[in-house]
């Protein structure tokens, strides 16, 4: 297992470097935006990866509620944490891109706002886990995760009708995209997916280990004699 992990880590490193090379050197420079546009290769894969992780969080939460398996709960925490990280990358690269291109850091556009709301929902999920004083945090957290997932389509829909009432700064060109760009984008996405998987994997192992240690400690406490208090 350990060996597979190391090999996978090396492969991911290679893929990431290759994708970086592709993004910075190989990909053609965009005509109107110039080199800033290269943020695209980080911005978009991060977003897709974050969406994927949030989906995993939802599925894991449902499974947890049905099976009450500790593994599903661990997976839910891990995917939410890593998902929030990637979502944060989107929220940071977005404004970095917006500033030179639109001249402002932020605007209340559909895509931007819905991403922000998504981020807020999952941060509140992590907050709940952190602040819970209950012995059954996973149950409360899983309920919140499901509420959050139910909310996402409504958020997107509401913001979509809300903000398109007025003209908004338009993202990208929409329409066509240079096939070479498309190619680089896919490579980057593959690299990001591997990277996310890698982090999730090690974070998951850490989480499982932590739980095992806690269980050991509890067992130890059981076996040791104790006073009344």
């Amino acid at each position, binding site marked *: 297992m350990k060996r597979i992990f190391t090999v996978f880590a090396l492969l991911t490193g290679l893929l990431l470097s290759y994708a970086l090379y592709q993004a910075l050197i190989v990909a053609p420079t965009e005509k109107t935006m110039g080199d800033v546009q290269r943020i695209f290769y980080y911005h978009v894969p991060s977003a897709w990866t974050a969406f994927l992780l949030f989906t995993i969080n939802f599925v894991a939460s449902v499974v947890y509620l049905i099976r009450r398996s500790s593994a599903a709960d661990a997976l839910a925490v891990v995917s939410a944490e890593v998902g929030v990280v990637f979502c944060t990358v989107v929220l940071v690269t977005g404004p970095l891109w917006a500033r030179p291109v639109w001249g402002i850091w932020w605007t209340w556009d559909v895509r931007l706002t819905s991403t922000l709301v998504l981020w807020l929902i999952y941060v509140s999920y992590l907050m709940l886990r952190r602040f819970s004083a209950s*012995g*059954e945090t996973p149950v409360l957290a899983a309920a919140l995760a499901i509420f959050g997932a139910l909310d996402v389509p409504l958020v997107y829909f509401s913001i979509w009708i809300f903000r398109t009432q007025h003209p908004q700064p338009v993202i990208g060109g929409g329409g066509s995209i240079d096939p070479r760009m498309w190619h680089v984008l896919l490579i980057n996405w593959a690299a990001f997916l591997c990277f996310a998987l890698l982090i999730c994997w090690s974070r998951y192992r850490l989480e499982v280990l932590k739980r095992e240690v*806690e269980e050991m*400690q*509890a067992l130890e*406490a*059981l076996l040791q*004699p*104790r*006073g*009344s*208090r």
Partner: protein
Amino acid sequence: MIRIAGLIKQFGPFAALRGITAEFAAGSLYVILGDNGAGKTTLLRSIAGLARPTRGSISILGNSEVRDACRDIGYMAHPSLLYDEMSGMENLRYFAGLYGISDDGRSENVIRGVDLDPALTRPVGQYSQGMRQRMSLARALLHDPKILLLDEPFSNVDYRSALEMVKLIAQLRDSDKTILLVTHQATLLEDVADEFVWMEAGQIVSRTRELKLLETR
């Protein structure tokens, strides 16, 4: 009839109950004794379904899921489990509703049974401590449950009323209920208890028919 097997309850790293296996039969009064922090309250809470066992199983009247037997359990806790802002009668009327009991007669009788006046309009928050304790017992008895879990019912209750309570409890026992009673005033129950269950550090260390204070330890 309560059957407990290998019950362990942990709060984080701390084990409050460390492997309890026991049976409690109907028609008997069990008095649970033990030092502060021995785990008596935790045991009762587990049986009542308020604390989830970390390991082990509890079966009540044949139900392996405690919730299924909740209609048969009467639980009296350290805190009063009463609304301070309402009078005793108002409280009982509300709780009776939760058990589907709609006539006030029953509530009034229970209140009289613990030697209080059902006509008292004062809110429970203004009762004296002992009156509150008795009201709390009344709440536990309200739906005439088959199993009674009483956590220190005599604390703060005056001597005379405590004797009355003992009589009441003995009667209940005789009407075929299973009664688990935690107390530190074991002498009050010397004559009526069927068995004394000694707990220490989360375990049951002995069960005796006679009360031998201090000597047992």
